[in-house]
C-alpha cells in the first residue's frame, strides 16, 4: 500500500465518514423510546423528528441496525394487495419509496422491475383477477396476463414447469414492482434521524418495560433504566418476547423464512417472478446474483438457523421454472424471522396500555411497508391516535372480528 494512502488512513483530520454517531451512554429520560433499530424503528424516529420536531428519542437495538428482518428480506417492493385497506397502505409506501433516494441523498438502488405472480391453476387465476380489479379500482397498475405474454416478457421461463406441476395458466403483472437495497434503507433513516438529534444505541437490550396504572413509565435495559412515557415496539420477529413485558396478548406466531443467493450471472432476469405453487420468488440483483426465497418454514421457531431441506427445495423449484439454471451454484443462505398474523396483515398503532405502541405482525411483508409504517407510526406516537391509514390494522381488530384478509396476496408472494 502506498505510504501516502496509509498516512491518510490514519490521519485524524480525515476520519472515515460514519452514517451516525454512537452515543457514549443512555440518558436518564427520553420523550420516546423505540425498541428495534430496523427500518421501521429508525424510520419512525426519522419522521418523528422531521414531521413533529420530536428529537429527544432513543432507538434501542439489541444487535446492530438493520440486522433483523430489514437486512434479511428479499428486498421486494409492491402494492398489488387484495383488500382496499392493504392496497391503499402499500401503495402509499411505494410512493414514499420512489422518492426516498433523493430525500436521503443516498442511492437505494430502487429499481422498478415488474412483478409477476404466476398462476398454476384456474382457481389461482381467479384470485389474481380479483386482485387486479381491486388494484385498478385504487389506481394501482396491475393486470392479469396470459401464458404467452408471460413467456414474451420472461423468455427463459418454462411454462410447463418441467412437467412436475400444473403448467402456468397466466400471471398477475404489476409493473411498478421493484427491488431496493434493503440495508441502505436502514442506514438512510439512521443518518437522517441522527442528524436531527435522535440517539441510536446498538448492543443495548430491553429487559423489561415499567408500567404504572396502565401507562408506560419507563424501560429497563441491560445498560440501565430509562424514564419515558412513550414506547414503540418495532421488533417484528422478536415481538413475542416484548409483549409479555406489558401483559399484552397477540395472535402472533413466529416462523423462520429462508432465502438464498446464487453466484453472480450476466444480467438475464430483469423481472421479479413469484410462484405460490412452487413456494418460490426470485429476482436478479444489481450484482447479478439471483436472490430467491421460499415460503415459511413449516413450524414455529424463533431461530434463524438454515436447513439443507430448504436449499434442496428452493433449488429444485428454481430449475422447474428456469431449467437453464441447473448448473449454477448457491453462494449463501440465511433465515429471517416472520411474526405471522392470522389475516396476513400487520398489527399497528395504539394498544390498551397508555404510551405503548406496537408495530408488529410483519410476517413476510415488512420491508415493502417500511416508509409508510415509519411515517404512520410516527404520526400515531406524536398525536396518540392511530393514523387514518393504519386504523384497520389496530390490534383490537381481532376482538372486534374485523380482520383484513390478505392471505391471497401476501403468502409467498413478496
Amino acid at each position, binding site marked *: 500500500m502506498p505510504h501516502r494512502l496509509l498516512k491518510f488512513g490514519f490521519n485524524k483530520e480525515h476520519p472515515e465518514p460514519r452514517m451516525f454517531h454512537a452515543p457514549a451512554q443512555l440518558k436518564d429520560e427520553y420523550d420516546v423510546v423505540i425498541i428495534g433499530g430496523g427500518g421501521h424503528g429508525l424510520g419512525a424516529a426519522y419522521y418523528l423528528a422531521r414531521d413533529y420536531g420530536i428529537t429527544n428519542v432513543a432507538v434501542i437495538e439489541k444487535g446492530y441496525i438493520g440486522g433483523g428482518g430489514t437486512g434479511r428480506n428479499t428486498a421486494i417492493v409492491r402494492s398489488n394487495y387484495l383488500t382496499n385497506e392493504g392496497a391503499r397502505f402499500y401503495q402509499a409506501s411505494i410512493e414514499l419509496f420512489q422518492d426516498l433516494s433523493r430525500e436521503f441523498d443516498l442511492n437505494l438502488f430502487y429499481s422498478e422491475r415488474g412483478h409477476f405472480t404466476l398462476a398454476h391453476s384456474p382457481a389461482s387465476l381467479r384470485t389474481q383477477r380479483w386482485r387486479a380489479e381491486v388494484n385498478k379500482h385504487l389506481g394501482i397498475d396491475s393486470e392479469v396476463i396470459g401464458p404467452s405474454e408471460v413467456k414474451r416478457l420472461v423468455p427463459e421461463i418454462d411454462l410447463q414447469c418441467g412437467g412436475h406441476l400444473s403448467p402456468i395458466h397466466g400471471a398477475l403483472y404489476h409493473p411498478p414492482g421493484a427491488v431496493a437495497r434493503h440495508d441502505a434503507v436502514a442506514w438512510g433513516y439512521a443518518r437522517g434521524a441522527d442528524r436531527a438529534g435522535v440517539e441510536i444505541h446498538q448492543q443495548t437490550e430491553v429487559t423489561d418495560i415499567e408500567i404504572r396504572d396502565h401507562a408506560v413509565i419507563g424501560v429497563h435495559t441491560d445498560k440501565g433504566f430509562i424514564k419515558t412515557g412513550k414506547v414503540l415496539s418495532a421488533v417484528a420477529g422478536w415481538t*413475542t*418476547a416484548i409483549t*409479555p413485558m406489558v401483559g399484552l*396478548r*397477540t*395472535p*402472533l*406466531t*413466529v416462523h423462520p423464512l429462508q432465502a438464498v443467493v446464487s453466484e453472480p450471472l450476466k444480467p438475464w432476469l430483469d423481472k421479479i417472478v413469484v410462484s405460490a405453487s412452487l413456494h418460490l420468488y426470485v429476482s436478479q440483483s444489481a450484482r447479478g446474483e439471483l436472490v430467491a426465497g421460499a415460503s415459511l418454514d*413449516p*413450524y*414455529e*421457531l*424463533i*431461530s434463524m*438457523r438454515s436447513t439443507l*431441506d430448504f436449499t434442496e427445495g428452493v433449488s429444485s423449484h428454481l430449475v422447474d421454472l428456469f431449467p437453464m439454471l441447473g448448473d449454477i451454484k448457491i453462494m449463501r443462505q440465511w433465515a429471517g424471522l416472520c*411474526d405471522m398474523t*392470522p389475516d396476513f396483515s400487520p398489527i399497528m398503532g395504539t394498544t390498551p396500555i397508555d404510551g405503548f405502541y406496537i408495530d408488529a405482525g410483519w410476517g413476510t411483508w415488512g420491508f415493502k411497508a417500511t416508509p409508510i409504517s415509519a411515517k404512520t407510526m410516527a404520526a400515531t406516537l406524536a398525536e396518540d391516535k392511530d393514523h387514518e391509514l393504519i386504523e384497520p390494522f389496530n390490534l383490537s381488530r*381481532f*376482538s372486534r*372480528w374485523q380482520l383484513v384478509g390478505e392471505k391471497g396476496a401476501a403468502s409467498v408472494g413478496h
Partner: protein
Amino acid sequence: MKIIHCPINGPRPLQEFHFGGQVREMPVGSQVSDAEWADYVFNRSGEPGIQREWWYHTASGTWFIAERDCQSDEFIRTYLYGGRESDA
C-alpha cells in the same frame, strides 16, 4: 437431519411430520363472552420458551403431543394425548 420421536413409530426424520400448532383448551362457546372467545380463536402465547404442540406423523396418521423449546428447537418429550410417553 432433525429427528423426532413419535410415541408409536419411534425416532423418525422431521420430513415425516407435520406441525399442528399449540395445544390449547377450547372454552365452551356458550359460556364465555365474545372477547374471551376471540382471545381463544386468535391469540397465541408465541413467546420464546417451551410450549406444548400438536405434531402429526403423516405416514402412520398418528397425532401426538410434543413439548418443544421454540427457540432452541429442542424436543423435550413426546407423548400421546392423555397417554403414554415415548421411549425417547
